[in-house]
């Protein structure tokens, strides 16, 4: 599955380089990664056509599952850095989740408090990265 991911991911980057929007489902109708795939692991290529609301919901589920019992109700505007993350490992976990779930590639400069402020800002970042 990882190699399929790599091929599709590379293809998406190629499309971006050629001036496309990077949405592989628009240009690759034979993509193996269909929304019905139960065995697609963390590489959810449906994410590429996701709207911000769906991304926010996925992020909220992730944070609630990964960092439970923080003593705070998680809202889309909850300050993730001050009121939700346990420690910097939480940031790394989130980066890994974003990379696997949305097949986006992050750089060091993306790890900033503008992107990681709350679920809304993070989902905007994901949406923007998806093209």
């Amino acid at each position: 599955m990882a190699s399929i991911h790599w091929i599709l991911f590379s293809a998406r980057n190629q499309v971006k380089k050629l001036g496309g929007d990077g949405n592989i489902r628009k240009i690759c109708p034979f993509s193996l990664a269909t929304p019905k795939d139960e065995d697609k692991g963390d590489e959810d290529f449906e994410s590429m056509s996701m709207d911000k609301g769906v991304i926010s919901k996925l992020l909220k589920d992730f944070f609630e599952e990964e960092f439970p019992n923080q003593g705070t109700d998680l809202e889309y505007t909850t300050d993730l850095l001050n009121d939700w993350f346990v420690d910097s490992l939480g940031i790394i976990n989130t980066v890994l989740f974003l990379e696997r779930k949305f097949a986006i590639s992050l750089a060091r400069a993306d790890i900033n408090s503008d992107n990681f402020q709350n679920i809304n800002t993070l989902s905007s970042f994901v949406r923007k990265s998806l093209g």
Partner: protein
Amino acid sequence: MARLLGGHPITTEEQEKNDRHSPVAAAAVVGVLLVFIYLFTQFYQVVGLPSPEALAGKAGLNLNYIFDADHNVDCTLIISFTRKYDNDTERLIFFSIVTLAFLCVYFLPLKFKRTALVFWFLTAVVLLYGLHAASGLLFAHLAVYLIFHPTNKRIAIVSVVAAGLGILAFSGDNYFNPRTFVPWLILPVAYRYGLRPVLLKKPKAASVCRLIAAQSSVLLVFMGASIEGISGYEWKVPLGIFLFFWHWQRVILYHVDYKDGHVPKDLPVSHYLSVFLNPAMIPSWTWSAYIGQGYAYISNNFLCEDKNRLVMAGLKIWGFSLLYLVFDRWFIYNLVDYLEDTFDITLFVHIKSMVRHHVRGEYMSTPTVLFSCLIDQSRWMLLWASVVHFKVGLWRIFGYNVDPHFNRPWLATNLANFWARYAFHFRAFLVSAFYYPIFFRFFKKNLHLRVFVATMAAACVGNMIWGHMSENLFYEGLEWENILDYLPRWPYFLLLGLGISLVQVYLLRKKRNRKPWTWGWRIGTDVLATYLTIQFYCLIHVFGRPVPGGTIYEYWRLFLIGLGIHLPG
């Protein structure tokens, strides 16, 4: 955590809204500074007050290990590398300048605040270290600025000023000898027609120049030590440049911020200097010199909330600093006396002393090794925390919302968390400079290997070479011997790196279903986890204190004694 990631950029309007005066807060800071002056200087003699020791005696507090020969409190908050005055006088000058700097930064209009801090910093350095040292430090920073910001409109003036400062810093007292100053006059010309066009037109060459500038301290000390090893010639570094060397981690993080696009290309020189030249840097210069690192962190956290709240937070953290500064030795030595009397075991206050006795062939029991390591690190923790709390408190009083460097490490239930709590800013440096570059570039297909290697790069390699070995050269001198002397400490860095890496890899897969220190039956596991974490961290310090005649085998033997395993000597 928000501040760990640099914080959010803050507008001038928001800063002005946070800049409301409170005479009570200002008076409180001045009052606490007077307490510092009373306890840690001889000012009490000038104003005819009883000495702190006499006052304690009158109050019935006959405390040992606290007061020194001049009857004030013996203090680890010092002005390093200078012998112009005695310690107490240096502290008096420093506290006086801090008071003036605070009044300026508190009451001046917003646009003058940070420049005022640079001014008072330079005034303090001139008074405490001399004009040559202040010139050298300023010269080095302007040289970095010239390389990072060639687009600045006034860059020609900056290069001329840098040349003038170079003459002051490097010429001794021979300012007017043409042989001395003429070469420096070439600097602005060489910059204008040689380096600046390269910086502006050749991005790759400019990138290499910035990398060299950012790593200049580390490169110079390793180069100096290597040359000494080959030729026997030892470099003598002017004091101002030496002071600049201690900004190496902050310059590296400035470069990281620059690469990430957080630093404006045409940043005014006064803003650049305000990132580095702050009076909070001066006390115990070498201790945690990386506090207040990078551009984004400093600029985003200045007056990012109500300044009186920041002042009160600073005073609170100064309270802890004061407690540790006064009572550190009293607590540790009385604790050792109590433990030795009660449990009838031999204890060492310094690990190095224990290692020396062990290498001589003396028998060490497991409780001696374990408790001595705990005692030594508690001693060091109190010493260190007293200084870093003072520094962090000072940053806050000046309006910067700087994180505590030392944040209740006794609550850490694993080594990764302990390291973050024990040395927040140092770990932030290593994460930005080593962890992220590896993590985002290598082993992307292997989760565990990716995290493991990135953590080892930061906690083991970066920590040893960029964190401690270069520091050792700054302390001990640019000699090859000082590199060789440091190498036997590798097991400390290896074990620390392995410990943190394995914890990270484990926690990646572990589902967290409760927060540590939540009340319930499992709180016992938190206590045990905390003890094991701290004990492991303390125990690996047997590798960090090598002694003459000691071998790696002897240090491992001592380490294993701590684990209850006695190997033959």
